[in-house]
């Protein structure tokens, strides 16, 4: 008999405990910092591809969509790739019979995973970038030379 009542009150207790968050409209918010990829899709006229169809393909299976979604009104789309899958991630954006596939390489380096931007992945440095790189190398070497050529302190 004692065990019978214990079972009843025990059960009510469990129900009560489970119900508390519902009555109180409890909310649990956590946060996690992740590396995401931002896509900006525009027509060549500069007009954003608003609400365009987006399909993401992971390197492990380039034929099956890993994620499908749409762009924002500004033609933007943000996703977090599975960094456990290094390789070339491909993002297809389509609208009104026109579209393009963007390849985004994620490579493993000594410093960890590195995401290469689409622009850099698809083109060589422009003349300005190349000039900056050459200038940096030259300035670094000149600075080294000046360091070694300085007069010793008395």
């Amino acid at each position, binding site marked *: 008999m004692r065990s019978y009542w214990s079972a009843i009150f025990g059960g009510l207790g469990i129900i009560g405990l489970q119900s508390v968050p519902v009555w109180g409209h409890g909310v649990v918010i956590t946060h996690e910092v992740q590396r995401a990829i931002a896509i900006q899709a525009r027509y060549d006229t500069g007009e954003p591809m608003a609400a365009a169809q987006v399909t993401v393909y992971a390197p492990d299976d380039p*034929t099956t969509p890993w994620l499908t979604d749409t762009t924002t009104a500004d033609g933007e789309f943000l996703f977090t790739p599975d960094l456990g899958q290094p390789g070339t991630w491909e993002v297809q954006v389509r609208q009104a019979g*026109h579209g*393009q*596939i963007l390849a985004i390489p994620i490579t493993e380096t000594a410093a960890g995973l590195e995401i290469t931007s689409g622009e850099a992945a698809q083109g*060589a440095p422009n003349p300005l970038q190349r000039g900056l790189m050459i200038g940096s190398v*030259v300035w670094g070497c000149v600075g080294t*030379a000046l360091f*070694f*050529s300085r007069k010793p302190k008395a």
Partner: protein
Amino acid sequence: MTKRLLFLILIPVLAAFGQGCDTAPEAEAPVTPPEVTEQTTTEATGTLQIRANGEERARDGFTSKDGWELSFDHIYVNLAQVTAYQTDPPFNPERDDPLQAEVEVTLPVTTTVDIAETDPEYETVLVGEITAPAGQYNALSWVMQPATTGPAEGYALVLLGTATQNRESIDFALQIEETLAYQCGDFVGDERKGILVAGETADLEATFHLDHLFGDSRSAPDDSLNQGALGFEPLAALAENGRVEASMADLQTQLSGDDYDILRGILAELGHAGEGHCRVTDA
């Protein structure tokens, strides 16, 4: 000692600077001929099909931006040097970067296909197929050039059909003798194409967008596609006794200068890979 050290350090600096000031830097050098992977019996290969597609507009007809109902009896396209590529980095036809192929395979024949032909299974027309190394073929090129034989003899593109508006009906035969070489990137569409697994069959598609030429009444009049399209009205104005038959040479003299320029520009935009754009290069 200090001078010697300075000299030693400056030598590589000047050498690096000299390379940087080269008027023809390596990154901007002309395209090196892509390496063709020779197929051997030990290589993992599959069958790569190249198909042509005029979409439902070619098969079922459509209404032009200026209200002409178009139906096509035949749309002949003569395709040569059809080549599929595995490129790295992926080829983007909307940039100036060259197509850098790691593997390429070319159909050995020139073929005329009818993209108005309805294939109930594929809705596309087989141009040809070839045994190819497995991998991801993410670029396609072809040359649309005048046929030397067959129904399109003398022309690269022939559109035969009927245009109807209100009670007026015009039979048309547009015969394009221009040679155009298209280079396209990855296929863009409902499904991925060109991913060839050893022992299996994959396909790539040369797609022709007729709405670029005639516009489409289903799009808004101010849609950029309709704004750039020729429409059918300029061609209807050339009809005699309910028929217009014209080559590019004829159209150059019969169309207005602006309309002829629009037509030439559109021909360069006709070729796609699914919904993906192409660029036209020297044939």
